[in-house]
């Protein structure tokens, strides 16, 4: 018990919230869709629940903090989908307020990325087209291009490496 309390007390809640807000946001957006207007509310609820549960000593270190938060997030998402209602009473302000420029920044990054993809050599573009845009399986892409599935993976990886380099420049 002592060691469990020690584990829980060792947690820096601000750091936990800061680190996991992005992960929880990703999971919530993925589950509800970015078009759902209240996805940020769900994220806030999850983070609040995390803080409350840790403070109450419900995190006993039986699992990792990541799994603990994942469980809370999953349940909250299921509840949200069931209720389809907002339950926001008594929710404190989020530790990190969402940046209003976030969307604009993301749009700009997406534009830069799309332009970089556009500049790739045809052999890389066609793989990205078939695999990510047309969502063919690796084997289907391989068959379509007359190359091995392994070569498809290599081209996908190399294309992403090139994109990283192009965006950094």
């Amino acid at each position: 018990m002592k060691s469990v309390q020690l584990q829980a007390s060792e947690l820096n809640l601000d750091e936990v919230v800061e680190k996991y807000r992005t992960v929880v946001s990703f999971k919530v957006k993925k589950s509800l869709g970015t078009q759902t207007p209240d996805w940020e509310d769900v994220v806030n609820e999850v983070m609040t629940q995390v803080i409350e549960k840790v403070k109450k000593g419900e995190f006993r270190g039986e699992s990792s903090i990541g799994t603990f938060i994942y469980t809370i997030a999953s349940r909250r998402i299921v509840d949200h989908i069931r209720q389809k209602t907002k339950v926001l009473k008594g929710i404190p302000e989020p530790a990190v307020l969402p940046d209003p420029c976030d969307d604009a920044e993301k749009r700009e990054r997406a534009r830069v990325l799309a332009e970089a993809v556009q500049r790739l050599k045809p052999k890389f573009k066609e793989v990205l087209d078939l695999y990510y845009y047309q969502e063919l399986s690796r084997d289907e892409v391989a068959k379509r291009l007359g190359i091995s599935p392994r070569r498809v993976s290599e081209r996908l990886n190399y294309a992403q490496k090139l994109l990283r380099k192009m965006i950094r420049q």
Partner: protein
Amino acid sequence: MNKCKFEDQIDSYLLNKLEGGDKDIFEEHYFNCTSCFRKMEERNELITAIKARGAWIFKEEPVPERKSLVPTFERVYSYFTPRQWATVGISAAVLLVAVFGILPLFRGPAPQFYLSETEVVRGESLSLISPIIDVKMAPSFFEWRELGQDVEYKIFIYNQKLLWTASTKETRIDVPEDVKLMMVPGYKYSWQVRAFSPKGALIAVSSRVQFEIKGTE
């Protein structure tokens, strides 16, 4: 660096191809694995950009020539106004008519060329027939192909220097006995024929063919 075993599931997850328990396990994993989450975020950005702008990214490429020629054409076209371009066009047409249509009418007679013995009129070829390979004894005649009527041929036989020369209108010439005696076994000789028009102009020169008199064993 070891690759996380869940990395291969990133694409499947983002493209909604991961279902049921596999999806739950993967989600729990990225809550605990910073490396996978970072890679997934990056991949998600790429997939989102591709999904949003795929129609533009993967549209048919324009023909490269068109890309480079159109701006050039526009730049050149902008040098003059349409009226100036019309003037340029008419001037060019007049110039072409003058150069290729009218000027040739006033051209004088073609100049006469006279060839020296070392010159040749290109286009005519004079082929040698015999001898063109090594022989056992001094050849008794030399033969070549006919080039035309009334053509005079002049044959030249050399060892190191000119050994014998003669003219004929035939395409074959017999070698006099005294010349044959000068052509001894074990030595190399060469020969060449030049063709002259009835007016004496050189019209063709054969290649110089070498042969050796091997002698009888």
